[in-house]
């Protein structure tokens, strides 16, 4: 028989591939942020989970250029990106859009929602659509 019994549960016995599958089921960024702060392995797991996503929506999050770009740059398979302003205001600027155009996933990205963005000008949009 196994020696379990009084042993404490140990999620670290799970290989990172399984952790990633569990993190894939967490959608609100707050849950991902919490998980990322647990330990180094979890941080890596969250990063890889975000990196594997086809859809990211930052609508409703008060998020700036740098944070959006950091996520998009790791999401190589991204197909849909929502950075619309929504209630709180996702604050992506022309500079952010330009940075986004350098992401690896940009060729596969079929939809970017910028609805309600007030700080993006034609300049930024034209830049990303050469």
């Amino acid at each position, binding site marked *: *028989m*196994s020696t*379990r019994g009084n*042993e*404490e*549960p*140990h*999620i*670290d*016995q*799970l290989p990172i591939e*399984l952790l990633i*599958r*569990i*993190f894939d*089921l*967490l959608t609100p*960024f*707050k*849950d*991902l*942020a*919490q*998980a*990322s*702060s*647990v*330990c*180094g392995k*979890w*941080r890596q797991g969250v990063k890889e989970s975000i990196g594997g996503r086809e859809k990211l929506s930052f609508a409703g*999050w*008060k*998020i*700036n250029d740098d*944070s959006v770009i*950091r996520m998009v740059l790791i999401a190589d398979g991204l197909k849909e990106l929502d950075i619309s302003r929504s209630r709180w205001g996702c604050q992506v600027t022309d500079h952010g859009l330009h940075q986004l155009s350098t992401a690896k996933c940009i060729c596969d990205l079929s939809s970017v929602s910028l609805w309600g963005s007030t700080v993006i000008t034609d300049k930024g949009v034209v830049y990303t659509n050469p």
Partner: protein
Amino acid sequence: MSSSTELTEKKVFLLKSLDGVIFEVEESVAVQLEVIRELIEGDCARPFISLYNVTSEILALVIEYCKHHAETCSGGTSATIADEDLKTFDNEFMNVDENILLELCSAADYLDIKSLFELTCRTLASLIKDRTIIEVRKMFNVENDFSVVEEKAVRKEFAWAFK
């Protein structure tokens, strides 16, 4: 040789756990373990199949799960009733401590039982959700291995998500 279907012998397989316990299971159960499907179909499952990564305690649970799923799906009940029944069963089945849950998750992955793997992942995700970092660390006995600098970096990375 009267009623041939009644007398048809049900095929059974023997599964041996890591700690040497042998379980006899029917084919309807064994085929749910994708990892041994080829052995079963190729008739290479004699005298028993060794499952090196699963203890008898966990294997017994896995077999209980597969048995219930096989019986419910072949029971001739309507799809909606079967669905409801499985949902209730799954919910009760997941009512185990975190340790068992983690072992079930790894076992389902190793044995390649998709539905059980998804069920355990969903349950684990729901345990992580809406809990504080400290609660999660305590629940799963995870040590905080961040340096002060790293901890700051993680906070900064996701500062927007905590607002």
